[in-house]
């Protein structure tokens, strides 16, 4: 289904969503950052940024989440599972790369056991993506097989066609239902071919060349040399829409507690530390290698999909300017390879 959405109708869109019982999450500007967060009013929406600071994942896989609570009494343990965590919502104004991270992560969250927190939220949340009309030098979606107007993962895709008009295309049944529910907000699509305003994202490397190189180069100087500057802060993994490692801890007293699932990341020294004190990934070079290997080799082997959508967040946020696409360029460009194999 195709429709037209005018910026003037954002107001009625948000009110409409509220009436239909949806919570709305949209990009909002606060001080320096544009962040995806819950909004109440259409004028909070900001759409003139490249990409939000946070990724979409936190609405499906929050930074911290209670997975059960318990009380311990003499001869008895009572457990209680949380409820009501999947709230009917719309994420409005996510980017195509973020939207695509969802089907990529579905694979792991439905793998050997299905993670109900992820699955139920996936059902409850509808994704309305806005195609990118601009990009920056960190974006590389086109190098990992996506595009600034890609539809995978979105339920509805909006594409800017004039200063205040968006072409509305429904992608899934869920998206179609949403548009039908709010019919009056949309108008008929323009006749003829609209002028889609979509960013041109330069292709930086050939993804096909990455995995074969990784297959051969587990041992290579480049891992250490590239990552001397890395401080192991893990910020890259936390802002990444496709990083999904977590740690489970009990926060408790003697008699009661919560079992909590928290984000974790392979860039931390402690990530692979054994109780004995031995650490199989003992240097930052090894940890950086893990990040690249997991995203461009292991995940591909296991799930037939790259664990990176080219959003560039990790590189934007990195305090030491470790740039992932630069690393991949090095890998994919033979003559560019700066150091010889040992």
């Amino acid at each position, binding site marked *: 289904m195709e429709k037209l959405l005018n910026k003037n109708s954002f107001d009625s869109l948000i009110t409409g969503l509220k009436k239909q019982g949806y919570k709305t999450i949209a990009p909002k500007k606060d001080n320096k950052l544009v962040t995806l967060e*819950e909004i109440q009013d259409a004028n909070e929406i900001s759409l003139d940024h490249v990409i939000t600071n946070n990724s979409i994942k936190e609405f499906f896989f*929050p930074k*911290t*989440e*209670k997975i059960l*609570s318990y009380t311990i009494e003499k001869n008895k343990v009572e457990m209680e599972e*949380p409820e009501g*965590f999947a709230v009917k919502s719309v994420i409005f104004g996510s980017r195509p790369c973020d939207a695509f991270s969802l089907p990529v992560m579905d694979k792991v969250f439905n793998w050997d056991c299905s993670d109900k927190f992820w699955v139920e939220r996936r059902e409850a949340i509808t994704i309305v993506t806005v195609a990118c009309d601009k990009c920056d030098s960190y974006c590389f979606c086109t190098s990992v097989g996506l595009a600034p107007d890609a539809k995978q993962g979105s339920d509805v895709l909006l594409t800017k066609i004039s200063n205040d008009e968006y072409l509305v295309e429904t992608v899934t049944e869920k998206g179609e239902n949403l548009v039908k529910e709010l019919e009056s907000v949309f108008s008929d699509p323009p006749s003829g071919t609209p002028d889609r305003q979509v960013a041109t994202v330069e292709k930086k490397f050939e993804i096909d060349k990455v995995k074969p190189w990784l297959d051969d180069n587990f041992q290579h100087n480049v891992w250490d040399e590239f990552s001397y500057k890395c401080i192991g802060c893990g910020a890259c993994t936390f802002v990444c829409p496709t990083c999904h490692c977590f740690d489970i801890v009990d*926060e408790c*007293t003697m008699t009661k507690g*919560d079992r*909590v699932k928290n984000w974790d990341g392979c860039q931390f020294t402690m990530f692979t530390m054994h109780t004995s004190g031995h650490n199989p990934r003992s240097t930052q070079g090894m940890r950086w290698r893990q990040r690249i290997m997991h995203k461009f080799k292991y995940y591909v082997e296991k799930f037939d999909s790259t664990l990176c959508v080219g959003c560039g967040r990790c590189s934007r946020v990195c305090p030491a300017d470790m740039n992932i696409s630069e690393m991949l360029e090095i890998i994919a460009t033979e003559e560019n390879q700066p150091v010889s194999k040992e």
Partner: protein
Amino acid sequence: MSETKFEPKIIAFLCNWCTYAGADLAGTGRKEYQANVRIIKLPCTGGIDPLFLIKAFERGADGILVSGCHPGDCHYNSGNYHARRRWNVFRPLLEFCGINPERIQFSWISAAEGGKWVETINGVVDAVRALGPFEGYQKLNTMGPDISGEAATSGETG
């Protein structure tokens, strides 16, 4: 619901050699003081990490007293001087974050000052009772991990 008077929970971190002995003296002298205080005895005020205070608040304290030997009387010579330096910066830090400094109090009470102990602890209990329960912090505790940011800011502090 019937109105029940708020009774503050006070945690007192006391050094073994002076204030604890002072509190003991108050006890053996059958001096009465308000029963709102739970005492935690430690070897020296110099060994009290500010995290002890944070933990006490996390576990529901409405107010805290840290007390040890008078300057010059420390059993380990200088533990209380080091502690004093710490509280000189930690207290303003908490205040800067919006925690009422009346909720964290300090005193020097010697083994002979049973009377001063009674007076001090009564003072702390009264002051914290007047402030009311430390709702701001307790809210942080009860919200559980799955809450979002906004909820945290709407609470009353104390």
